[in-house]
């Protein structure tokens, strides 16, 4: 019955197509929701002309970007200029291969897991792959041969490097608590523990989320593309498809950070209060795990947009100071505290 062809080729292929399609669509509609929510916060209506209530706006935007003239600056470093968007987009999409959207389940008699793969070093893979994305930004900024792009690229490099450290340290606290690097196992550990890791690790979560906002170059850390200073930062010279890729990568990265935050700190696909029996009905409908996962991710994405609607932008040196002088020491102390706690209370074996 289970031919290896189906198990090893067809199922993953279908999953890849589905996940890629969903993620790209999600990223596109994230831009729609961002515009809509920002508009509503700003007493405006937002896009409402293309399709009913503007629902087709992302499609129209994508179409426009794809048919638009692709301008290549005459003095640009051509190969690198092409490579930039690719190197940003590919890692952002790659990460989705290890994100568990739900637990393994039975579907039409088959074992079915709503994720592409469960690697036992999932977290390491995420941290590693996501740091590759920065090269795309630096190279794109440098290859454009534009001073604003260059400054945007440099800012981005410094920012990503310095925020990677506290982010990694805050992830380590979760690993201590879960005793595993596999994302599925981490969620399982939260189920066993009966509470989300957010509760014991709220400091770590806070650091993780701040760093996540910084990693994705979002407000208030959107220095690499600070519009009022650097015009459009590293993608000043990009247009058409290539710009679309940068755009896609930014939004895909937001989804990644939110998904990882959900998995690490908010119990992944688990319902709220997983230990309270009385709330079991929250899990009773079909597709409940995926629903809870998406709800949590959506909440994070809303926070992203909310921040963008509210905060001014940090200055470059202040950003660095925050990263190295505040977040790093705090995360180190936090790591030690959590380690001590795990040691004393006896964490998972």
């Amino acid at each position: 019955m289970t031919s290896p062809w189906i198990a090893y080729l067809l199922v993953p292929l279908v999953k890849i197509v589905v996940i890629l399609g969903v993620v790209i669509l999600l990223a596109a509609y994230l831009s729609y929701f961002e515009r809509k929510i920002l508009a509503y916060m700003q007493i405006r209506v937002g896009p409402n002309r293309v399709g009913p209530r503007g629902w087709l706006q992302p499609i129209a935007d994508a179409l426009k970007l794809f048919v638009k003239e692709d301008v290549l600056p005459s003095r640009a470093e051509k190969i690198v200029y092409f490579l930039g968007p690719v190197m940003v987009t590919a890692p952002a999409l790659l990460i989705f291969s290890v994100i568990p959207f739900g637990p393994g389940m039975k579907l039409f008699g088959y074992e079915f897991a709503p994720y592409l793969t469960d690697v036992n070093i999932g977290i390491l893979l995420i941290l590693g792959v996501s740091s590759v994305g920065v090269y795309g930004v630096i190279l794109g900024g440098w290859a454009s041969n534009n001073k604003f792009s260059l400054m945007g690229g440099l800012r981005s490099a410094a920012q990503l490097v310095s925020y990677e450290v506290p982010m990694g340290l805050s992830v380590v606290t979760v690993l201590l608590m879960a005793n595993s690097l596999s994302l599925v196992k981490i969620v399982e550990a939260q189920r066993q523990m009966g509470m989300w890791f957010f509760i014991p690790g709220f400091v770590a979560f806070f650091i993780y989320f701040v760093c996540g906002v910084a990693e994705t170059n979002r407000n208030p850390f959107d220095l690499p593309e600070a519009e009022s200073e650097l015009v459009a930062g590293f993608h000043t010279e990009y247009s058409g498809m290539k710009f679309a890729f940068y755009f896609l990568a930014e939004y895909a990265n937001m989804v990644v950070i939110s998904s990882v935050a959900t998995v690490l700190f908010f119990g992944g696909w688990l319902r709220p209060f997983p230990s309270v029996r009385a709330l079991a009905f929250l899990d009773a409908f079909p597709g409940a795990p995926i629903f809870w996962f998406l709800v949590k991710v959506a909440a994070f994405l809303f926070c992203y947009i909310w921040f963008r609607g509210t905060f001014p932008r940090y200055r470059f040196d202040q950003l660095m100071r925050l990263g190295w002088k505040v977040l790093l020491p705090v995360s180190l102390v936090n790591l030690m505290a959590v380690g001590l706690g795990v040691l004393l209370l006896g964490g998972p074996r």
Partner: protein
Amino acid sequence: MSPEVVRPFPDSEEMEISFGPQHPATHGVLRVMVKLDGEKIIEAKPIIGYLHRGTEKIFERETYNGAIPHTDRLDYTAAATNNQGLVGAVERLMGITVPPRAAYIRMMLAELQRIASHIIWLGTHALDIGAQTPFFYTFQEREKILDLYEDYCGARLTLNCMRVGGQPFDLPTGWTERCREFIEQFPARVAEWEGLLTNNRIWKQRTIGVGVISAADAIEWGLTGPPLRGSGVKWDIRKVFPYDHYDEVAFDIPTGEHGDTYDRYLVRMEEMRQSVRIVRQCLERLPDGPVLAKVPKVIKPPKGEIYFSVEGPKGELGYYIVSNGEANPHRMHVRPACFINLQALPEMVRGYLVADLIAVIGTLDIVLGEIDR
């Protein structure tokens, strides 16, 4: 404000960047050539004139009333105060006394204009520093002020709402009620904007200690308006040389202490509240009577020269008129507040970072229409 910028790596290469004339943060067509060491500004050199229209030359061929629409286009965010300066100068040159009702209407229009101008400043300044939402909240209120202007004179931006000798129209019925309605709800809006910015740590970090200019330097560089008051100099034309009936209304001059961007921000926020206070008093005292003095049909001031200035939202806006006894001025010079305030920009940003340049351009509240004329 160090005369020599300390460079951590003296051998590093300098980079020269041209900010503008098309740049999101230069408020029009200002161009700043910036010499950078990394992100540190070694030298900034403003280049202006992209919007030069020869307004002063045009004045020489206009009649005095015909020159008023041209003043609308100087500082296009504050047309009413521009008009007020010009008509005030001509009235002093001719010895015309303005009927009190007209003077009170002028004061109301000017104070509303000050609020509207500060609103634009706040919105764009916040946008420059990265907070985009205040922009929309503030412009919401500005629309209400522009509606009041439309009710009064039929235009929203280029008002042309004053004439030599008084006002062209009386207030329409219901205007005072609408105006009162606006000013009663306005302080709550200001509090909302302050809630978004004043205590916000990012806003504070971005503005405190940025673009510092001391009181003595501010006077030396001829700063006027909020940039001067932010440095702690209590100086306002409305108090020093009161025009219209500013000596009859009570208001305070807010001043800062440190002369940095944050203090200038606070000064302008307070000025909005003071303007509300003035408008409220004007509405209470608004006398009856004519709005236009008895002026000759063709305005021919005697030979002579006059300088008259009003406290515009950006600073001291002066008109220097040399009359030859004819129907058009021999020479009409505008003392543009923004032009002179902008001159201090290189001093104020030297040694700061690129992001601070944007903040300082924002805090000087420049309008290129007035700088380039």
